[in-house]
C-alpha cells in the first residue's frame, strides 16, 4: 500500500515542491492550504500516515491545528513533522509537548525530508 502524506502549507510553491520530492520517493501526497483545510482533508482522506505542517498559516495556525489533531481520537496517532521557517525554542518546546515527532527548518533538503518521512511512516 502506498503511504499517504498530508502536506499543510499556505504556500502553493512549498506544497508543489514537497509533493514532487515525496512523489518521486513513492509517497502519495495530499495538500491543504491551512489548518481548517487540513482537518477537513484528514476526515476525507483515509489512511493518512503522516502530516507535514507549517506553523505560520492564516485562519488556524500549525500549533492550533496540531492540538486539534491530537485531541481527536481518530487522528491522534498520526505522526506530525513540522516544516517551517521558525527556529524559536519556545515554539519547538510547545510542539514537543503536543506530540510533534520532528521539526525541520525551511528550506528543506530533499534527501533529509525523504529520510525523515520514511522513518516516521515506517516506509
Amino acid at each position, binding site marked *: 500500500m502506498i503511504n499517504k502524506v498530508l502536506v499543510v502549507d*499556505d*504556500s*502553493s*510553491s*512549498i506544497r*508543489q*515542491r514537497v509533493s*514532487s*520530492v515525496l512523489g518521486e520517493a513513492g509517497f502519495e501526497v495530499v495538500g491543504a492550504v491551512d489548518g481548517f483545510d487540513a482537518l477537513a482533508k484528514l476526515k476525507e482522506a483515509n489512511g493518512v500516515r503522516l502530516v507535514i505542517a507549517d506553523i*505560520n*498559516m*492564516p485562519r488556524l495556525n500549525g500549533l492550533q491545528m496540531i492540538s486539534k489533531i491530537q485531541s481527536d481520537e481518530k487522528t491522534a496517532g498520526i505522526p506530525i513533522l513540522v516544516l*517551517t*521557517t*521558525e*527556529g*524559536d*525554542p519556545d515554539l*519547538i518546546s510547545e*510542539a*514537543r509537548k503536543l506530540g*510533534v*515527532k*520532528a*521539526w*525541520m*527548518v*525551511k*528550506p*528543506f*533538503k530533499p534527501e*533529509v525530508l525523504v529520510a*525523515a518521512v520514511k522513518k516516521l511512516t515506517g516506509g
Partner: protein
Amino acid sequence: MKSCFPEVLEEVIRRSADECFRDSGVTLPPLSAPSQLQTDDSHVAGLIDLTGQIEGSLMLVSTFDLIAKMRLSGIAPACLSKSRAGDWILIRDSAGELTNQFVGRMKNRLRGFGIRFNVGTPIALSGLALKGLAHKYGGGRTAAFGRGPDVVRIAIKMMADPPLTSMEPQAESPEMPREGGILLL
C-alpha cells in the same frame, strides 16, 4: 563588535540574504541600496508584518525571471511563462515564500542578539497592487542584492529600533536546528 541596532540589522540582512539566495541556487552580491522601491509589470513581491520588539513590515521585490530561476516550487524556469496567468500566480507565491524564508532567517539570527519578534503570513503581490504599496517603502531601511538584471530589493518599515541586549550574537542551544536541518523530538 557592533555598536548599535542599525549596524546589527544591516549585517543580519546581508548574511540572511546571502544564505537565502545561495540555498535557492543563485549568488547575488550586495548592491548600493535604492532609496525607493520602483516596480514595473515584471516585478513580484512578498510583504510580511512584523510584531513584537520589531514593529513594522518588510517587503522583498524581485522579477518573475529571477524568482523562476530560484526554483522554490521545484519547477524548472524553462517550464514557466509570463504569458500564462497560472505561472504568475505560482511565481508570486514563490516570492511570498522567499520573503517568508528570508524573514525567518532574520528572526533566527536576531534572536541571538536578544531581539524577539513575531512574523505574519506573507502576502504575495504583483502589478497594480504592488505598485500601490511599493512607494510607501521609500525612506525606510533598504538593501539590494544582484547581478545584471537579476536584482532583489528589500525594504523595512519600522516604528522604532528595538533595544539590544547584546552586541554580539549569543550561541543558540546546539539542539536548535539550522535552516535545512531537522530535529527529532
